[in-house]
């Protein structure tokens, strides 16, 4: 056991520290802050999810996909431990399926986010679980297709609805950029361009890590389904983002 106040209280999620914190949960949040960035925005009639995937090896052909489709109209992106993210994606898929099997309607995004947050919160209460080291952004449409939905669930089990949200290493600069947007009037393609720009903009140049961009969306053009952004549009968005950065550097 080490020294100092609170030491020795971080060995299990089932133990409070003397000032009422659960250190295991805070460590899980740290795990998210050490990973790449994920962004979700809710535009006028669209949801766009974006994530940057660090190129971990020069020999890697292509990074594995990180955005997941959970049910027809709902997608997710995430930051944190990659294996935890995948486990949660599969958990959500299972939940969507069982909901549909039981009620014969698609699960509303809010209900999915609440159920996911219960699952994640449960992993913060007992000593035989480790909290999930992942923050999940859920985005998509409910069955009536009326309004885009966006929710973020954190390792502690906190879940809120957002107009735009970010998580990962540079979540604060990303949030600063997101706050500048006129979200209620943002069209689908414009939103894709914006997400690509922000992910490039917040990328830490000094670390000089190559990264790959992955974008997915749900909007009227996709029939409200969650699908990857078409390669042609993705290329265009990346090009525009790089041009924006060059212009900024010149100025």
């Amino acid at each position: 056991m080490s020294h100092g106040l609170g030491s020795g209280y971080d060995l299990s999620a089932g133990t409070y520290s003397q000032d009422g914190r659960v250190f295991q949960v805070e460590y899980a949040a740290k795990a998210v802050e050490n990973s790449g960035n994920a962004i979700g925005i809710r535009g006028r009639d669209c949801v766009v999810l974006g994530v940057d995937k660090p190129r971990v090896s020069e020999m890697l052909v292509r990074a594995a996909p990180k955005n997941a489709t959970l049910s027809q109209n709902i997608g997710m992106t995430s930051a944190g431990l990659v294996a935890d993210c995948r486990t949660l994606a599969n958990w959500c898929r299972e939940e969507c399926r069982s909901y549909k099997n039981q009620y014969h309607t698609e699960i509303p995004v809010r209900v999915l986010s609440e159920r996911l947050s219960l699952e994640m919160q449960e992993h913060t209460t007992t000593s035989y679980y480790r909290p999930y080291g992942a923050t999940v952004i859920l985005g998509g449409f409910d069955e009536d297709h009326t309004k885009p939905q966006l929710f973020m669930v954190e390792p502690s089990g906190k879940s809120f609805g957002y107009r735009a949200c970010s998580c990962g290493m540079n979540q604060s600069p990303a949030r600063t950029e997101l706050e500048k947007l006129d979200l209620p009037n943002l069209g689908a393609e414009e939103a894709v361009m914006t997400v690509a720009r922000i992910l490039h903009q917040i990328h830490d140049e000094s670390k000089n890590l190559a990264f790959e961009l992955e974008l997915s969306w749900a909007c009227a053009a996709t029939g409200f389904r969650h699908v990857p952004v078409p390669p042609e549009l993705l290329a265009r968005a990346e090009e525009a983002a790089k041009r924006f950065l060059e212009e900024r550097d010149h100025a």
Partner: protein
Amino acid sequence: MQAFATPEQAFHEALKAKGGVDLGTSIMACRFNGGVVCGSDSRTSTGSYVANRITDKLTQLTPNIYVCRSGSSADTQILSDYVRYFLEMHSLELDNRCSVYTAAHMLGDLAYQYKEQMQTSFLVAGVDSTGPHIFCVPLGSPVIEEPWSIGGSGSSYIYGHCDATYRENMTQDECIQFVTNALSLAMQRDGSSGGVIRLAVMTNDFKVERRLITDPPSFSRASTACKTARRRLGLLSPPALSPSLVFLPRFPLFVVSAPGRAARSP
């Protein structure tokens, strides 16, 4: 007297002999331009014995959804109780009204799961955010949406009437009249339907009104004669009479005597 190994076996043998407690029934649901009406007769029979003459076969699943039950009385009661419980949890999670489609499918799934043990047939009617809906969930548990639907043993007598009479976009009053007439016709021809007509009217503003029609309209001559006789016996309320006739005495059906009086009389 036959000996039974257990009381359960005795009960099942008795039920088998009587044919179980059935809702030999006439039920109906119909959509109109601002909601949906569902109705039923009120007879529950055990073979030829009327076990209950004022049964309520319309069960409220949620504030905006009703189910009309037919088949085995116990089976349909237990299934609709379960579904009511499930739907309450569901609408709490949704924080909204649940859809009629969900309710119908939930009944259908349960009925299918227990199809070997249960005899159920439902009409699910209600109003949700997408408007009024009627789903028919008959014996094999398909779920079928229909603008109007009839069920129970009495329904076979009135298919022709309903086909000929139903119109789209009826008003509420027209729809109530349609359902009342159709059920009356079924109740007069079907031996295991009868009693009063119970109605539930659900409108697009999520209001529900229950009605009880104790004096269903009669159509055939035979039933008119029967009704006149019953009215004379004081079983039915009198028809609208002119004021001069209103105060005429009506014959009581039974003369109830105080206990002991008969013994004292010579």
